[in-house]
């Protein structure tokens, strides 16, 4: 009888001793965590995409509570999340404009002249080092670095060799913008639908020769909408799309190559 009692009692006593010790230590060494931290972390999307510049949602929540990041720092959550966080922290949420990634190139396989036959590593970054697979040094390489970088499956490669962004899935985190070696991807306000679909800084005659859809810097759009579009470095840039009234949108159709125009919204 004692052979079994001794181990039970000793082990039980040991266990009890440590349990009481730990329970006491837990109380004694308790570290108080800011209760807002948990709430803010809960309000964030928890996608851990890093779009805010912090290494994950938890880190952003800490920065927000410590006042090192503003309540609208999460580009993914948008207005709704910013408002909830501002409420928790008791601060005013600044105005944030929802942004969406846009593809600024229309150099499809058909429109752009090819340059050799690229058989290397299937990545835009690698292809860019060799000058790419198209005559145009500014156009989309079509190897899908942006699609692979997207953490929200909001992008896909079309058969014509260009990527598309699904507007309802795009959160504007900017991963594709980072991934693209040629700056084809850029975040634009979601409401803006008139864009210049070209990044070519080549002179008109050259640009026209190597791509059917390139901006050839003819200047028609800049003349029609002087407040909205400017011409610089042989490329049209939209400075303020609100200066293009809806009833005059059809004037954009004068563009000889279709490099400027309204984007087709894809969901």
């Amino acid at each position, binding site marked *: 009888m004692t052979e079994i009692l*001794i*181990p039970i009692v*000793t*082990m039980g006593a*040991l*266990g009890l001793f*440590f349990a009481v*010790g*730990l329970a006491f*230590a*837990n109380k004694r*060494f*308790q*570290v108080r965590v800011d209760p807002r931290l948990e709430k803010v972390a809960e309000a964030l999307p928890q996608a851990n995409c890093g779009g805010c510049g912090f290494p994950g949602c938890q880190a952003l929540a800490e920065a927000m509570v410590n006042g090192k990041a503003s309540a609208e720092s999460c580009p993914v959550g948008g207005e709704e999340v910013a408002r909830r966080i501002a409420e928790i922290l008791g601060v005013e949420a600044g105005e944030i404009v929802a942004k969406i990634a846009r593809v600024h190139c229309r150099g499809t396989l058909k429109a752009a002249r090819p340059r050799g036959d690229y058989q290397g590593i299937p990545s835009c970054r690698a292809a860019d080092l060799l000058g790419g697979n198209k005559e145009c040094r500014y156009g989309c390489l079509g190897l899908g670095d942006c699609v692979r970088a997207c953490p929200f499956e909001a992008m896909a490669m079309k058969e014509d060799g260009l990527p598309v962004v699904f507007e309802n899935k795009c959160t504007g985190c900017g991963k594709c913008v980072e991934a693209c070696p040629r700056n084809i991807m850029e975040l634009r306000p979601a409401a803006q639908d008139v864009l210049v679909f070209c990044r070519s800084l080549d002179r008109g005659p050259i640009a026209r020769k190597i791509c059917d859809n390139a901006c050839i810097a003819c200047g028609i759009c800049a003349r029609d909408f002087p407040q909205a579009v400017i011409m610089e470095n042989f490329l049209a840039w939209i400075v303020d799309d609100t200066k293009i009234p809806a009833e005059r949108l059809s004037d954009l159709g004068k563009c000889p190559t279709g490099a400027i125009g309204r984007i087709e919204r894809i969901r």
Partner: protein
Amino acid sequence: MNLLLIFIGSVLINNFVLHYFLGICPFLGVSKKIKAAFSMGVAVTFVLVLTAVASWAINHWILIPYDLQYLQIVAFILVIASLVQFVEMFVRKTSPPLYQAMGIYLPLITVNCAIMGLALLASLKEYDFAETVVFGVGAGAGFTLAIVLMAAIREQLELADVPEAFKGAGIALVVAGIMALAFLGFSGMIK
């Protein structure tokens, strides 16, 4: 002299990772970067020494007097887990920077077989208190040495042209095996 022999023996000859194959899990898991590997090594050394002290005390003051050595495994697990928990709480309260530095590693080590191995081996070899502590320090130093060497090799491996089939865990295990063979060369040092 005996203490020195135990120390060198546990660092080089009976290295915990490369001779006993204990603690392989962190050895492969946390050996991608030298810095993280070193932190892990320091944390393991710390817990090993702590364990050496605690397990010796439990063994000599409770288990042996009551003739309960067959309960060693259970008792050691209990003691080690509670102690590490306690240390974690203590460090978290008293030194946040230290907690930040090794906080993630501490709970990982609690249930590591190297810790358990140390407690059992020390009692098997019937070391006295000083010998047990030196054995713990040596085992920790040996683990740190092995994991830092491994991390250094793996940092270089990142740049090497490894065949597709060997990438990742495959080449890591091959490297570990070759390192174990190299350490086997030390076994002639002590007769």
